[in-house]
Each structure stands twice: as C-alpha cells, then as structure tokens.
C-alpha cells in the first residue's frame, strides 16, 4: 500500500525539491550542456576565441588511433575488473555463507576496503608494488621475477585492475551474501538429498537463483570500472606506460586538462555521456524488471 503525502502549501514541495534540483543542475546539466556546446568548437591555443567545427571534433576522434585504442583498453580493463571483483566477492560470500560462527567479524573485515577512498587505495597498492621500494615488488624480485609496472604494459594493467577490483569486492560481497542468504536453506538441502555435491549444488541451484543479484552487480561494476576508477589509475600509473592504462575517462582528463585540447576532451565527454545513457537503459530495461526465473 502506498501512502500519499498531501501538502497544504503549494510552494513547499518545490522548496523541498529545490536543493536536489539545484545540485543536479549545477553539477550535471550545466557541465553536460557545456560539454555538448564545447564539443562543437576548437579553441585557439591561447583560449581567446573558438572556431565552430560542428561534428569535426567527433570526426577527428573516431579517426584517431589512440582514441580507438583507449576504447579497447577500457573494454579490457572493465571486463577484467568486473570479472575479478565479482568472482572474488562471490567466492568470499559462498565461504562466509557456510560459516555461522563469527560470520559478523568476517563480514565487517570484508567491508572495510569499501571505506577506503580510491586515491588512497591506489597509493596503498602503489607502495606495495613500487619497483624500487615496494614490498611485493621486492619479494617478486627475490624469487626472480623482475616486476616493473612503470615500464611493462601488462603489469601496469594488471596492477590497476587488481587495485580497482579490490575496492569493489566489498560492495559485491555484501550483495552476494544477502542474495545467498535469501535462498531458502531447505532448497539447498533438498538438492543435497537429491545427490548433488557442493559444487553441483552451486552451479545448478545457487548460481541460477543468484542471477538477479549477479546481473544487477554486473551493471554496477561496469559503471564503476568505467567511471569511478580514475583515482586509482591516476595515482598508480597516470594512464601509462604510454597509453596502456588510459581508459576513456582518464583520456578526457589527459587530453583536456593536461593536453589542453578542450574541444576533443568535450567531444569525448559527450561520447561517455552516450555510454552512460546506454548503460542506464540496460539497467532500467533488465535490472529493474529483475531477471526472473
């Protein structure tokens, strides 16, 4: 049953909504509008005047091999982060679900990483893996592996993926654990009596019943990997070596604020806006309606 609040004062509802609308307008609509507007111009090197180019910036972007490479980097990065963080979280949740005693403590510990700001998380991982002073790097050296993510593309990508995924594991873990605990015990027991081993039960009963949670997290994690990993990448690799870890969002920053190519940067923002739009559509179409069985 839904209760309706009735306001006597006609202005009050608008007043109550105003802060939210203001925030949305200032931090979303206005910048988005600016981005769309600016994407149609190329400013001169001194920023004094701009020249209208229509879709020129976009034409240039999509013929720029670096930009297309960044698309590929983003795809690899997001897929890896999503898989790693969801896989690890699911594994931890399954283990935690089996433990009854002391599960509170486990849960609290597993939630901590989420409270760490992205940049700090980046620095933590950076210190561990720094080729000169990092502890892990030192151990890797000791066992004969020459770790240097500053020079090696693959290692750099690996490190930002792990650091980004690590933060997201907590969030995924909470949802997976809640999902697991919503599955009636007796259904699992029935499967055990029907002769299914632990893993058989997991793949034929538990995992299918978790699918709504999994799908929801899939979208959330892709969005996270796309848009919220800036801090981690910025602190650990700065997008390098070369462009090996420059995902789309990082490229907006690198081209716009570092490279001062505002027109291109604005056009990239618009592209990202479209990507967000698509993800939102997917989320509404499928997640809101729930994946049903």
């Amino acid at each position, binding site marked *: 049953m839904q209760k309706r609040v009735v306001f006597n004062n006609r202005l009050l509802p608008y007043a109550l909504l105003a802060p939210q609308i203001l925030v949305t307008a200032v931090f979303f609509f206005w910048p988005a509008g600016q981005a769309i507007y600016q994407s149609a111009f190329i400013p001169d090197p001194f920023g004094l005047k701009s020249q209208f180019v229509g879709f020129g910036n976009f034409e240039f972007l999509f013929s720029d091999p670096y930009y297309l490479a960044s698309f590929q980097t983003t795809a690899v990065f997001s897929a890896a982060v999503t898989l790693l963080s969801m896989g690890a979280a699911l594994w931890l949740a399954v283990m935690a679900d089996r433990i009854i005693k002391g599960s509170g403590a486990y849960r609290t510990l597993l939630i901590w990483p989420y409270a760490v700001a992205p940049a700090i998380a980046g620095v933590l991982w950076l210190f561990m893996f720094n080729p000169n002073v990092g502890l892990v790097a030192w151990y890797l050296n000791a066992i004969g592996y020459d770790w240097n993510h500053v020079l090696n593309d693959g290692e750099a990508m690996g490190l930002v993926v792990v650091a980004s995924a690590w933060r997201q594991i907590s969030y995924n873990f909470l949802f997976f654990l809640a999902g697991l605990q919503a599955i*009636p015990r007796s*259904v699992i*027991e029935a499967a*055990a*009596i*029907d*002769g299914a081993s632990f893993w058989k039960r997991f793949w034929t009963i538990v995992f299918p019943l978790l699918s709504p949670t999994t799908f929801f997290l899939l979208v959330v994690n892709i969005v996270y990997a796309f848009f919220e990993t800036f801090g981690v990448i910025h602190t650990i690799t700065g997008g390098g070596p070369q462009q090996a870890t420059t995902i789309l969002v990082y490229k907006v920053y690198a081209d716009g604020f570092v490279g001062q190519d505002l027109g291109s940067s604005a056009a990239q923002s618009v592209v990202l806006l479209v990507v967000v739009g698509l993800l939102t559509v997917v989320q509404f179409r499928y997640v809101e309606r729930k994946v049903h069985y």
Partner: protein
Amino acid sequence: MAQIAFSNLRKSYGKTEVIHGVDTHINDGELIVIVGPSGCGKSTLLRMVAGLETVTSGEIRIDGRVVNDLEPRERDIAMVFQNYALYPHMSVFDNMAYGLKIAKVPQAEIRERVAVAAKMLELEPFLERKPRQLSGGQRQRVAMGRAIVRKPAVFLFDEPLSNLDAKLRVQMRVEIKTLQRRLGVTSLYVTHDQVEAMTLADRIIVMNGGVAEQIGTPLAVYEKPATTFVGGFIGSPPMNFLSVERLQGSGLAASFGEAAPTLAKTVGVRPEHLSFCGEGQAAWSGELVIVEALGAETLAHVRLDDGEVIIVRLDGGRTAPVGESRVHVTCEADKLHFFGTDEKRID
C-alpha cells in the same frame, strides 16, 4: 526397502541436549509417524536420519549399515519438506528429474520414470510449469513426485501437509498412505497433528522434550498410554486427569475395591468413556458449564465440586442436560488409567 534402527541416539546443540537417547527399530515397509508438540525434537530426529544434522552420539543404521557419517546422498533416502523446497527456477519436470540426472540415469528412463510419477500424482498437465505457477496442493504433489521418482530406500516427511487447508490435508493424507502402501517404502513421517498420526501410522513414536515416550501401534498408544503426556496428547478431546483421591468415596471405589492401585497418583479417563448417570451411581458430581454440539459428537464440560473441569463426550444426537442443573458422571472401572508419581502408567 530398508530397516532403520536407532540406538541410544542423542543430539546436542552446544551444551543443550535436545534428543535424549532414542532407541527403536523400524521394519521394512513400515510407516512410522513421529508425533509430539512443537520443539520436542521431531524434525531434529528426522534430519539426523537424512544426514542434514550431525549425530552427537549413538547410532543410526539403515539396513544394518551405520550411516552416522555418511553424506545425505550416500544414504539412499528422499525427503519431503514442510515448505516443499522445490527448485524455483526449474519446471515441474526438471524438479522431479533433478536427482535422476545427477545419478546419470539415461534420458529415456528419466522421462519414463517422471511420466509414471506424474500420472500417479495427476501432475501431467503441469510438467512444463514453474513451481510458482502451481497451487499449494500441486506443489505438495511435485515434492512427493520428486521423492518417488528416485525410488529411494526410505521416505522422510517433515510435516508435509501443514501448509494445506483442512480439506486438502485430509485428501492428501489418504493419498500419501495409499502411495506408501503401494510402493512399500519404509517411511518416517513427522507431524504435530495427532489425527494425522493416528490415521497414517503403522506405529507411532510419541515424543516429548527429546524423549520417545511411547512407541506402538495407534490403537495401543490410544488404549494404553504409557505416560500422562501420551494420554493427554493422543486423542481428541484429550484425556481427563484427576487426582486419585477423587476416586475415594466415589461410587467407583467399591467396584474395583482392593485392586485399586495404591501407588497411583493420577487417574486418567477419556471423555468418550464418561457418561451421565443418576445420583446413585455417580463417580463424580458437578455443574454443567458448557455444551459444545459438534454434530457427530457433543462435548459437555463439567465443573466438579472442587473446581476441576472434565469433558464428557456424547454421541451427536444426544444432548446433555442443560442449565444450572447438577449432573452426575460415571464410567466403567476398566476404562480408568492409573499413573504414578513419575507420570508413568501403572497396570
């Protein structure tokens, strides 16, 4: 087909013991009903047989083999749960076929066995449906079907009918009994409903506080309850209990004279064995409090002179004397049950 034996079976959760040593032997093809009030350990006992709970001490043997440490799947059992525990994402067919698929039974045989079970349970029109598209009674049948197709050595039922309405419960009760007879599979059936216990069971185990108070055929349990608890639990309305002193000075005292068990503390008498009589033959006298006419039977509540209330069961047509009137109650001496200070039966 299997025999089951419990020997000094115990279960503790932490320091609290909830099953205090059960001993019994269940014959091949028998339908045993475990009955008792909520929290007495019925489900725990059943789940130990299923392998869903560990055994703290004692032994469970199925066909002579100790199964204490075997996984559920190694025990050759099937279980029907109170909430049915169907796999919500699978069709009715897949629910029933799941165990067979895992056992790597050939496709054709799976189809054959599911078809037979579906026919037996009248589930044929629903094979493609998901559990949520079924009524409670149909879900119950699917749960039964899932147990049947596996052809296990033992069926375990944990209050399978308690989520159904009264009418359907009676119908399913009959069906379960018929099925069990037809298949001849040894079965353990848990319920807290004594009518279900009486109608289904070959033998009843009456449990109370983790102890099996009595094990016997329904009639034996009804006619010779081993304890006051069993007397009060089996039979509806329950047995009346009075302190044995109340017999002294009543008309009944004379009729059993010396034979009156001297150690007895409580005397029990079933409502159906009491009847109204003239003041002369009265064992007890009191005031009629209320008369419940239920159609097939009439229950008269009588408040005895010292304030205790007993129930007298009369045949449907007969009405008790109504009003403020004083009534007199008697019964045949051989229908009295005597219980000692330890609540145990004295013969």
